[in-house]
């Protein structure tokens, strides 16, 4: 191949001048002329001029009405070329679409190509394309259909997918396999960009998987890989099929067309292996099904070609991911060995990657290849080096941390890539915090990191470092020593060359000196001040850093010597344009001159007095709700984000637990330290935290217990160690002569080949023994190798972690709810009292889980009743009082109550409600009488501020849905001029009744005003959002306004439609907009169909018109809107439903809620 290209290259001049062979069109065309013109130019400037000229001429021609489609095609190609060179040709976009629309098949192709190159997915012109695609999909010309499907897979606006989805689905049944294949991939694309749109066609994916054409089948695997990644447990039943397919592929049963370099369908194989690894993870029985085929794949893939290596690599990964089997593991290990030892650099890289992947399960493998790994450390190829470092990072433990960190830092010193620098900086920090053998090493390492990584560093690194210093570890003595060391090293750094230090480091230095320079005896504050003062003169010093410096100086400024420095500074910088700087200087001057004041403002302490912090940040509620109303995404706690992120990186996270970041909500912060985010592990670091200092060995024991039945692991591990032990005496002395060894005690392996390179060889081995120490499977072996049994230190993080867990109750976890809400008998009692005398406002201060909601037992039947017999206004009045009293009877009911009430919430409304919200406690007495017996949703808090609390619930009457808003005024004074405004895109909101004093519109102190709004959906959608704003005047006359939002879901607006079977038949024929889907059946019930339909009736207020044998008909109606009819039939273990309505969106939305209603119990 390459020689061909080279040959043509030498012929380049002649080719340029003459037309190439007849089959190859046109370097004489206009495009050819253009390209040749560009080639001949000598400067960028000329090129620009030429292209601009070209674009002007293209523009002229495209907009001329006389241009034929054929010419247009040619023009488009030229426009694309210009655009690719980086010149904008946006005028031609619209013409590209036009060409796609109007041209014949071949012109269309250029048009579609230009569109896919010009426009990105969010470009507004794409909307114009939808129609063309629709038309082409319906075309009888297969080429046109193909092109349409191709462009759909490239760029298609997300919100227009529903328009073409049915058409694409239809193509799944097309007689030509190429069309089916493309349709499957188009659906795959839809799945990627809008997964919920294609949820209902899962059954069709299965059909595609069973397609007789292997091409279509392999295309469907892309979708399955995505779906399995998301939810492996629901596809376990397919394992057998996947295994069978893989067996057939490996066995060469596919048509020969699918061979690639005589390997059968490698792409297909790898796809299947990947799916199998996801399915077999942590699942013994599933894994057992695939052992045989994996073995077969390993055996077959023996040809010496890249593609077989690719398959082998995937096999190895799968074998290490699924439930282990010793025999396969042995083969996989051998495979990795072959990769690592391969002279081919690509294979070596893959081998290292595989090692990194498996090393935490099987550290002995790294031991076996230690010499190769050492060689790779000095490899000339950067990526090999990096992968090796990654590997080392994973095998770090308390014993080899010094050497490994040294290696990482060395790489860091030479790295020019910012991304790498930041990543490695984070890793070094993490290792240092976890495994630091002693204080001075820690400080030294951190200094190097600060110096090398500089200002690009993630901000949490300095923060967590400072936190460590201020909070300390186990013993106060160690803390003091650490601080002393820090102060010492910083003082000497400042004395040398402060100008070269990065900003962040300067900030750290000044903070530490400000806080802890008193630790060092004999260090006068004035000396420190004089050291810090020059920093203010540095030109590159940012004003932020200057503030840190000045803050540090202020803390130190005591005594006459400091005063003089302060005054000196004030003189020098007093004229600075930076007002912050000037202010700080001013403060410094004042405080320096007034020691009494200084002591009062900045009390000198040991830094650990606690400040009370409102960790719930309730004072920000207003801000948050405003931001939410303005469309901001709701806040996710960092660990949740981390998890989501981690789930995407499938490779790195799989076998290891995730390192949860430490608690952010620690309630006490130290001294004057501004608390900020704790260190969050950087990059891949999350994966290594499992290796705790001594855990390195311990964990491996655990692993061997699982795997090492055959004992081969132990044997392999023993070898190097035994060798090392026997050689200890002589090699140690050699090392001492060499003198190049680091200060860690080292041992060496026997030198295999004495020769001229003996010295180098020895160095390597010595390095190896440093790096791989502590990796053996025998727990005791590590310390012995070290020469002395060093007690394993606890990492620096330990303490912080402990704190995190001690404040764990504040974390938004399940147990926090139970701990903070398990009320003392007293509070339960008081809650009861409050309830009985029904004084709602007092109860606001009593955090009791008392009722929050009618218990499900009460609410569900009432819903059902009202649904089936709308005439009868709920005979048993689910008034809240009986429910309220329940918790008072038996305290142990409380936890149970929590769970159940939450399920009710899910059933009825979307938003998650805190069932303990005090405000909702006693609102039910305020519910207008006429609404009392009707089904209603939870009371949900809308917003609150100092004096007013707004809550709301949604009440369903037969002909309307009412939003009842309760405004509780807890303060003494009235809120005047109270007004509520509400808007929604999906709903029509109109006011029904105002508060008690309609004309006055103010809410008296200690009272509750009730507002009612009638809601009518303008169009059905799954969830509807209501945005509102409450405004009023505070007692001091200041206007106050608080935004809020309220989420509603479709069932709030669905009413049963009572029709007879005949009427139903008529309505059915009159409706259109079919939607069909299979729903899950409540199969454990004795009569599944009836049970399922009744569940739907109870949850969604549908009317079950009739049930005949295995079919049922159900009817409902959108509030003040059209009916929706549903026909259900039992079919192969699921419920095949067929919906019809005159509103196209209604069936879809309803189906969604049906699925939800059936999914939850």
């Amino acid at each position, binding site marked *: 191949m390459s020689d061909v290209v080279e040959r043509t290259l030498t012929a380049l001049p002649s080719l340029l001048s003459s037309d190439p062979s007849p089959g190859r069109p046109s370097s004489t*065309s206009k495009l050819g002329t253009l*390209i040749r013109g560009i080639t001949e130019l000598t400067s960028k400037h000329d090129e620009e001029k030429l292209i601009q000229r070209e674009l002007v001429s293209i523009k002229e021609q495209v907009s001329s009405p006389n241009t034929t489609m054929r010419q247009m095609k040619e023009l488009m190609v030229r426009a694309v070329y210009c655009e690719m060179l980086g010149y904008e040709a946006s005028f031609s976009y619209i013409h590209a679409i036009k060409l796609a629309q109007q041209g014949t098949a*071949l012109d269309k192709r250029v048009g579609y190509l230009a569109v896919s190159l010009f426009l*990105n997915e969010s470009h507004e012109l794409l909307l114009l394309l939808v129609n063309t695609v629709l038309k082409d999909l319906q075309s009888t010309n297969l080429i046109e259909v193909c092109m349409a499907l*191709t462009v759909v897979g490239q760029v298609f606006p997300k919100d227009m997918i529903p328009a073409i989805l049915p058409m694409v689905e239809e193509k799944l049944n097309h007689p030509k396999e190429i069309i089916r294949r493309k349709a499957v*991939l*188009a659906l795959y694309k839809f799945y990627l960009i809008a997964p919920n749109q294609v949820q209902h066609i899962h059954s069709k994916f299965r059909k595609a998987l069973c397609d007789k054409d292997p091409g279509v089948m392999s295309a469907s695997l892309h979708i399955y890989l995505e779906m399995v990644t998301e939810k492996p447990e629901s596809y376990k039943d397919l394992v057998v099929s996947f295994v069978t397919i893989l067996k057939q592929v490996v066995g060469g049963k596919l048509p020969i067309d699918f061979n*690639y370099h005589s390997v059968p369908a490698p792409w297909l194989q790898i796809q299947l292996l990947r799916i199998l690894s996801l399915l077999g993870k942590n699942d013994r029985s599933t894994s057992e099904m695939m052992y045989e085929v994996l073995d077969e794949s390993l055996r077959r893939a023996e040809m010496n070609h*890249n593609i077989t290596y690719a398959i082998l690599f*995937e096999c190895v990964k799968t074998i290490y991911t699924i439930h282990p089997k010793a025999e396969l593991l042995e083969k996989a290990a051998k495979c990795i060995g072959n990769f690592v030892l391969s002279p081919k650099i690509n294979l070596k890289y893959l081998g290292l990657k595989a090692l990194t992947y498996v090393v935490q399960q099987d550290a002995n493998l790294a031991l076996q290849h230690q010499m190769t790994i050492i060689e790779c450390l000095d490899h000339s190829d950067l990526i090999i080096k990096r992968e090796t470092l990654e590997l080392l990072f994973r095998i770090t433990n308390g014993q080899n941390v010094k050497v490994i960190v040294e290696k990482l830092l060395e790489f860091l010193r030479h790295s020019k890539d910012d991304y790498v620098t930041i990543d490695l900086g984070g890793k070094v920090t993490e290792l240092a915090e976890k495994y630091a053998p002693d204080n001075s090493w820690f400080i030294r390492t951190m200094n190097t990191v600060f110096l090398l990584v500089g200002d690009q560093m993630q901000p949490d690194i300095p923060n967590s470092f400072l936190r460590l210093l201020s909070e300390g570890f186990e013993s106060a003595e160690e803390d003091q020593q650490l601080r002393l060391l820090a102060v010492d090293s910083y003082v000497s750094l400042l004395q040398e060359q402060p100008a070269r230090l990065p900003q962040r480091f300067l900030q750290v230095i000044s903070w530490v000196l400000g806080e802890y320079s008193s630790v060092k005896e004999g260090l006068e504050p004035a000396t420190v001040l004089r050291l810090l003062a020059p920093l203010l003169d540095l030109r590159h010093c940012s004003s932020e850093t200057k503030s840190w410096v000045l803050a540090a100086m202020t803390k130190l400024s005591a005594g006459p010597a400091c005063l003089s420095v302060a005054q000196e500074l004030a003189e020098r910088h007093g004229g600075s344009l930076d007002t912050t700087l000037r202010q700080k200087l001013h403060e410094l001057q004042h405080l320096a001159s007034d020691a009494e004041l200084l002591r009062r403002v900045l009390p000198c302490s040991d830094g650990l007095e606690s400040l009370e912090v409102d960790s719930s940040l309730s004072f920000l509620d207003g801000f948050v709700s405003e931001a939410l109303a303005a469309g901001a995404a709701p806040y996710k706690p960092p660990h949740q984000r981390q998890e989501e992120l981690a789930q995407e990186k499938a490779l790195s996270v799989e076998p290891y637990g995730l390192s949860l970041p430490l608690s952010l909500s620690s309630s006490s912060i130290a001294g004057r330290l501004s608390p900020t985010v704790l260190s969050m592990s950087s990059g891949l670091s999350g994966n290594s935290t499992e290796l705790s200092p001594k855990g390195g060995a311990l964990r491996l024991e655990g692993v061997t217990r699982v795997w090492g039945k055959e004992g081969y692991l132990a044997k392999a591990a023993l070898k190097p160690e035994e060798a090392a032990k026997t050689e200890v005496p002589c090699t140690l002395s050699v090392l001492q002569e060499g003198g190049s060894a680091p200060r860690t005690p080292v041992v060496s392996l026997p030198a295999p080949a004495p020769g001229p390179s003996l010295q180098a060889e020895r160095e390597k081995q010595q390095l190896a023994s440093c790096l791989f120490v502590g990796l053996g499977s025998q727990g005791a072996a590590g310390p012995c190798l070290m020469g002395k049994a060093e007690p394993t230190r606890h990492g620096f993080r330990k303490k912080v972690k402990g704190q995190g867990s001690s404040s764990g109750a504040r974390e938004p976890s399940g147990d926090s709810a139970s701990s903070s809400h398990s009320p003392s008998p007293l509070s339960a009692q008081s809650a009861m009292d409050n309830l009985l005398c029904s004084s709602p406002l007092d109860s606001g201060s009593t955090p009791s889980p008392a009722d929050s909601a009618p218990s499900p037992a009460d609410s569900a039947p009432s819903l059902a009743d009202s649904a089936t017999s709308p005439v009868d206004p709920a005979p048993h009045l689910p008034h809240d009082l009986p429910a309220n009293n329940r918790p008072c009877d038996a305290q142990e009911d409380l936890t149970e109550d929590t769970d159940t009430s939450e399920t009710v919430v899910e059933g009825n409304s979307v938003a998650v409600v805190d069932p303990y919200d005090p405000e909702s406690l006693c609102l039910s007495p305020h519910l207008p009488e006429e609404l009392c017996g009707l089904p209603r949703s939870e009371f949900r808090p809308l917003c609150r501020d100092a004096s007013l609390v707004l809550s709301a619930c949604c009440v369903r009457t037969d002909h309307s849905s009412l939003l009842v808003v309760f405004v509780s005024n807890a303060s003494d004074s009235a809120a005047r001029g109270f007004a509520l405004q509400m808007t929604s895109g999906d709903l029509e909101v109109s006011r029904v009744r105002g508060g008690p004093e309609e004309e006055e519109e103010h809410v008296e102190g200690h009272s509750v005003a009730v507002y009612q709004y009638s809601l009518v959906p303008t169009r059905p959608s799954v969830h509807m959002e209501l945005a509102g704003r409450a405004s009023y005047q505070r007692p001091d006359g200041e206007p106050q306004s608080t935004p809020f939002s309220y989420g509603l879901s479709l069932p709030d607006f669905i009413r049963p439609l009572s029709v007879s079977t005949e009427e139903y038949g008529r309505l059915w024929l009159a409706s259109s907009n079919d939607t069909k889907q299979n729903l899950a059946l409540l199969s454990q019930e004795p009569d599944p169909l009836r049970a399922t339909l009744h569940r739907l009736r109870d949850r969604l207020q549908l009317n079950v018109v009739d049930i005949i044998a295995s079919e049922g008909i159900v009817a409902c109606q959108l509030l003040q809107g059209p009916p929706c009819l549903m026909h259900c039939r039992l079919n192969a273990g699921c419920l095949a439903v067929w919906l019809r309505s005159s509103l196209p969106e209604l069936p879809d939305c309803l189906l969604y809620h049906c699925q939800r209603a059936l999914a939850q119990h």
Partner: protein
Amino acid sequence: MRMRRYYFKEHNFNMKGDLWGLVRLPAPGESWFTPVSERYKRKVIRDMTMMVVGRPARSCNFLQWRDLKIKDRRYASLYFCVGMESEDNELLTLEVLHRYVEMLDKYFGNVCELDLIFNFEKAYYILDEFLMGGEVLETSKIDIGVAIEDADVLQETLEEYMSKPTY
């Protein structure tokens, strides 16, 4: 085979070798399978060009750029590069490139740089037939060759082709 987060790029540059030359005469073909911003595209291409071209001979075919891995394969003066997520199989990606080049070769006869420069749109068609949404659509080179050739002849004969079996 997942390149969906990133892009596929065939890159060709002038043998003058200086930076200006690189920018000036790309017969660039690039396909992005994920929506990314223009700025990001430009940055990736610039950085990637520097990295790929500036590498010493006989080194690894893989490069790391930020969080994406770049695989490149050189055919004479043509560099074909793919960027993909780090979890993907590197060797397989290299083979995707190789297969693509095989297809180009099959279609153009003996493919050379100039074929790609002057017929870049054809190269795109082949790529579209081969990969869809970043995934391998068609692994049989016979099929694609036939599909492209046939699209070049008249429409009627096309329909005839489509109705005959592909295997």
